[in-house]
């Protein structure tokens, strides 16, 4: 009987340990109630292409560098999702632009009248207009998908628009075998960013406003060389 009682009572240090264990258990339970969080991480290769002989400025707004997407659960069986893409976006665009242009210069502030910025041929401003994702539990299709719609702008250092266009990007991962939902969403997001880079690199010179600006800039540079 004594042995049984001693098994169920706790001394002061044991009580502390029990309290700590209970706290940990409660925290784990609370964490389980929170949203599934994905901080998108991946490697983005430099593009293999002929560089445009131009100096391009780049301005990332704070909304872009800290871009995150929150989707609240619609039912008790679903989980809320928080997908943070800002860091990966900046990493991808920096790598891509450095491979597309002779020189890339980060801007101190958003181009506009009175804003002091380094001298460049034009400033590129990417923005995420929309992000959507789909999980197999929502679609009954065995793929994880991520869509991003970008709003892209090319402006002068004074802020005058040169070109303004939207660009879609899409990525999917075929299977989540032996990986968590978070890892699969991360992979789909990385594929989407790669697709964004591919879409931008292969179509940039064909955007109407950009095409006219490029003709002008490249002809001016050619004449200056002659």
């Amino acid at each position, binding site marked *: 009987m004594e042995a049984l009682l001693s098994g169920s009572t706790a001394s002061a240090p044991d009580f502390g340990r029990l309290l700590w264990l209970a706290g940990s258990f409660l925290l784990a339970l609370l964490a389980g109630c929170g949203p599934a969080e994905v901080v998108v991480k991946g490697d983005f*290769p430099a593009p*293999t292409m002929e560089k445009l002989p131009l100096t391009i400025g780049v301005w990332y707004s704070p909304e872009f560098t800290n871009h995150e997407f929150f989707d609240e659960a619609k039912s008790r069986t679903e989980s809320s999702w928080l997908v943070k893409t800002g860091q990966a976006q900046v990493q991808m665009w920096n790598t891509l632009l450095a491979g597309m242009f002779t020189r890339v210069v980060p801007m101190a502030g958003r181009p506009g009248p009175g804003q002091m910025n380094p001298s460049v041929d034009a400033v590129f401003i990417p923005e995420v207009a929309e992000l959507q994702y789909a999980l197999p539990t929502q679609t009954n299709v065995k793929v994880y998908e991520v869509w991003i719609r970008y709003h892209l702008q090319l402006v002068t250092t004074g802020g005058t628009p040169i070109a303004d266009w939207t660009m879609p990007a899409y990525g999917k991962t075929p299977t989540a075998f032996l990986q968590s939902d978070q890892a699969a969403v991360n992979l789909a997001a990385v594929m989407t960013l790669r697709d964004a880079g591919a879409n931008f690199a292969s179509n940039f010179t064909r955007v109407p406003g950009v095409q006219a600006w490029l003709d002008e800039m490249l002809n001016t540079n050619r004449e200056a060389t002659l």
Partner: protein
Amino acid sequence: MITAALRALLLGAVTCLVSGCVTSTVDQMVFNKPEHGIGNATVVILGRRHASDYDTEPDFVECVGDHIASGDKTIHVIGELEFVNEFYPWFEPRTAPLQIADLERLMQNQPVVAKRLAAMNTQYMVWLDGSTVRGDSAGSMTCAVGPGGGGCFGFGTWSSDANYEATIWDFSEHAEVGRISTTATGQSYMPAVVIPIPIIAPVQGTACDGIGDQLLQFLSSNS
């Protein structure tokens, strides 16, 4: 004679029981086979990912590459991810050339791509297109856990179908020089008496071996 046939039948039945049954067919159409193998040249094997409803699985592409490399040690197969990263963004699902003429155009517009391909000494590019899908399933299984332990009881079965096509591009000929297609179908079983025992039909593996053998025959000087 009858004993040998019985033995073969028994062996087949045992193999079927242990790993599930798979039937496969391979078709090939090859025009310009290299007479003395590909020598020092390299070959790259890539998966098609432009369809909306399926992706060629990266592990299938890797399996075919490994099959070729292990079948003839002299053949250097460039890894898919390594190649796609090296030539980013030109072999992404959105931008990958669908015809050899598209690749020729890419090399003209982007000389740096042509230079890198030449530096890699890539003579053949093999595109794999297809996927393995799970088909009909039947049976039922119930599992329960109690204070004394747990277990499952029941039987499940499902079919899998693999359908792949390999297209071979020859850079020196600037042409498509062959097409190999393979289909494999298999039935997997999962009986459960306390513990579920999966007997999985290696459908994708069989398709990989089928297409790998034909590609090896095409590329290797040993065949």
